[in-house]
């Protein structure tokens, strides 16, 4: 168990090299096997994880460039643990669902490489290492969209790449500056996050650094108005790309908010609380409206992702354990749900080679199983209690209520508007009479699709009914982080707000 | 007094000569003016006490370089007037003058701001050629050798470039032209 984190990060990379030798026919089997092993490794990590320990565990530290404090530093805590498991799980599921024939070997290799970078992002405790993984993750996704996409794939791929890349360029400056600040404060260089956590920064510095990091994360999330790359990327990406993009890659942004922005710049985070919350609310409402107007199924889900990410951001900036824990849980649940939804759209796209809603109608008659699974996942997307979607949404909104009730009300309209676009989509695609001749011969789900979808549906229900083990583990780390924020805050206002939102009772 | 007269005379002459080089439309005039200018420049070197440099200037430029140009000119058969269509005259002059001013400014800036310590001070009583020899064969020995190799390489390159082509038959030249 000592080097399990390195194992988890680099196992897919090692597998990638073997992947070049594997024959074309067995490429998918190879990919699934590797992803399965990787998933089991992450489960082993969970089993070995000490649930009562809020700090970083399984820490591995090897100095790389010691005079500048750059090191190979991995660790996992309650916040990142489940995101790692989500990454490995969604990779596994997306590989199972894979049915692209073209260049399958290269695709599998690309996906495994992507898995390495995603896991690396969540496990890195060194900022330089984090940045490397963060940027590396763009490359496989660029290939997936650009090489296996449809329509304007090159445009979409380049847009995706440049957009996110430009966003993170400023972050690099921020990282270097923060490293320099650390050097000034302590006399030694360090880029390790636990070291940085101890660094108390003056308010003005925090503001600038928050801004620099914010842009990178906001593009990744994606926050309004930096979201336009997402519909294109999803629109052109193959199913597997969309699944990984929506389920895991978007979470990198919100994870980074929780991991960096809040504990490193507590005062700036509180200072920018309302602007960020307003953006989040715009995301929720605006994206829901745009989703409602879409004609393409996949775009509906793409915009719904933006809407849900808005609630995650809101929960994050609730600054209390309820909200942040809820936001992290919502990341997991949105990963599962959006992954499942994209997979479901992929199912119908494989059969009809179109995603336009108007091309369908009455599918419930011909594909009842498909409709049932779609229905369950849709209900989770809408946030019905006892599905996985409810827990996170409820906690996020609950948490933010303490900050501002009116904004919560506005963001809460998301649950109405979410129901509107999802139900209308469901009605138009599945209900009504089966009119189109092309649809009459459609086959219901086959074995491959079932194996990929059943675990997701099972998780939707199981985690909806019994989220407690996950919530507890997250919660303990989140509480520790909030205590840290409170300690580090330099302004009395910040401390006051943190105290207020983290306590129950009293009048408004 | 003599120095002042000599300086101004040389200056006016050199500027005049180079003016002809730059503005003349006849290659022959230009080349002759260039040769003249080169010799006159050596006058500055003598004025400045750089005897060795003056000698080298005359030998190398007027002797070797100008001879090469003369041969080249004969080769190109460009004794006739050259028609050049020159655009953007204003830009050219502005740019030139600006750059010249800036260069001078830069050159002067360190001199007037801080005193420069002489690395290889001239020693009174020792001749200029002697001093140069001393420095060239001690401190600058390697650059000197490298310069020698460079000259050798340039010589070989010049020979190779021109010679091979001369051996070509006129028809080959025609073909080569056609290819372009």
């Amino acid at each position, binding site marked *: 168990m000592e080097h399990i984190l390195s194992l988890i990060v680099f196992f897919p990379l090692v597998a990638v090299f073997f992947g070049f030798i594997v024959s074309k026919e067995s490429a998918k089997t190879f990919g699934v096997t590797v992803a399965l092993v990787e998933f089991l490794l992450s489960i082993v990590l969970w089993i070995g994880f000490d649930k009562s320990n809020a700090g970083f565990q399984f820490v591995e530290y090897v100095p790389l460039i010691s005079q500048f404090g750059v090191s190979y530093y991995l660790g996992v805590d309650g916040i990142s643990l489940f995101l790692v498991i989500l990454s490995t799980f969604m990779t596994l599921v997306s590989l199972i669902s894979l049915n692209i024939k073209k260049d399958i070997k290269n695709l599998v290799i690309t996906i495994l490489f992507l898995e390495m970078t995603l896991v690396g992002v969540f496990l890195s405790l060194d900022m330089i290492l984090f940045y490397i993984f963060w940027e590396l993750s763009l490359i496989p996704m660029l290939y997936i969209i650009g090489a296996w996409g449809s329509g304007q794939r090159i445009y979409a791929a380049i847009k995706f790449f440049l957009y996110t890349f430009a966003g993170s360029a400023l972050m690099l400056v921020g990282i270097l500056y923060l490293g320099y600040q650390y050097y000034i404060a302590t006399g030694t260089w360090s880029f390790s996050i636990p070291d940085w956590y101890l660094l108390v920064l003056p308010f003005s510095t925090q503001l600038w650094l928050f801004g620099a990091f914010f842009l990178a994360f906001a593009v990744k999330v994606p926050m309004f108005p930096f979201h336009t790359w997402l519909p294109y990327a999803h629109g052109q990406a193959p199913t597997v790309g969309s699944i990984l993009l929506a389920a895991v890659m978007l979470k990198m942004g919100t994870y980074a908010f929780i991991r960096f922005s809040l504990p490193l710049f507590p005062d700036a985070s509180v200072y920018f609380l309302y602007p960020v919350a307003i953006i989040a609310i715009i995301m929720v409402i605006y994206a829901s409206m745009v989703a409602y107007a879409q004609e393409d199924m996949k775009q509906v889900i793409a915009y719904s992702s933006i809407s849900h990410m808005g609630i995650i951001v809101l929960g994050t900036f609730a600054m209390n354990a309820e909200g942040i824990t809820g936001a992290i849980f919502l990341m997991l649940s949105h990963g599962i749900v959006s992954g499942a939804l994209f997979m479901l759209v992929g199912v119908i796209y494989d059969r009809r080679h179109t995603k336009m809603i108007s091309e369908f109608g009455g599918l419930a008659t011909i594909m009842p199983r498909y409709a049932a699974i779609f229905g369950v996942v849709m209900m989770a997307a809408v946030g019905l209690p006892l599905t996985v979607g409810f827990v996170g949404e409820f906690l996020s909104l609950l948490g933010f209520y303490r900050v501002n009730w009116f904004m919560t009300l506005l963001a809460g309209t998301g649950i109405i508007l979410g129901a509107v676009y999802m139900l209308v989509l469901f009605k138009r695609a599945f209900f009504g009479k089966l009119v189109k001749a092309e649809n009459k011969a459609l086959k219901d789900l086959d074995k491959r699709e079932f194996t990929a979808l059943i675990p997701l549906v099972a998780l939707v229900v199981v985690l909806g009914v019994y989220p407690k083990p996950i919530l507890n583990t997250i919660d303990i780390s989140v509480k520790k982080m909030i205590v840290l924020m409170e300690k580090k805050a330099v302004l009395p206002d910040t401390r006051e707000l943190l105290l207020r939102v983290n306590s129950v009772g009293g009048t408004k | 007094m003599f120095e002042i007269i000599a300086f101004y005379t040389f200056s006016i002459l050199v500027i005049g000569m180079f003016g002809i*080089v730059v503005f003349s439309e006849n290659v022959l005039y*230009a080349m002759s003016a260039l040769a003249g200018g*080169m010799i006159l420049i050596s006058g*500055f070197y003598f004025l400045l006490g750089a005897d060795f*440099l003056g000698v*080298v200037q005359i030998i*190398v430029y007027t002797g070797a370089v100008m001879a090469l140009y003369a041969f080249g000119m004969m080769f190109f058969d460009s004794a006739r007037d050259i028609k050049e269509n020159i655009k953007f005259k204003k830009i050219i002059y502005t740019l030139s003058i600006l750059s*010249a001013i800036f260069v*001078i400014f830069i050159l002067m800036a360190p001199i007037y701001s801080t005193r420069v310590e*002489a690395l290889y001070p001239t020693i009174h009583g020792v001749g200029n050629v002697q001093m140069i020899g001393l420095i060239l064969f001690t401190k600058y020995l390697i650059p000197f050798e490298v310069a020698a190799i460079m000259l050798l390489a340039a010589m070989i390159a010049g020979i190779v470039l021109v010679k091979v082509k001369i051996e070509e038959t006129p028809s080959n030249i025609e073909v080569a032209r056609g290819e372009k």
Partner: protein
Amino acid sequence: MITLTHYLTLTGILFSLGIVGVLRRKNLLMLFFSTEILLNAVNIGFAAVSKYYGDLSGQIFSFFIIAIAASEVAVGLGLLVLWYKRSGTIDLDSLQMMKG
């Protein structure tokens, strides 16, 4: 009294003359002439600084520059001959192959 400033002014005038040549000349041979002017202008500057500061490095540099000018002429003329044989002209406007 002739000071360093005089020399440097002269250098500047010659240098700008050289640049004018470089900029306005279209005939390659003339262009070479202009570059010679540039080099010589700088040489004077070096020699002058060398004299007024009693440092021989300037002269040494001038010396090397003369060496470089010589090799440049040798190689440059060789190439020029080559080009002339190819295209029949040494006009600058005929050299457009590097168009981006």
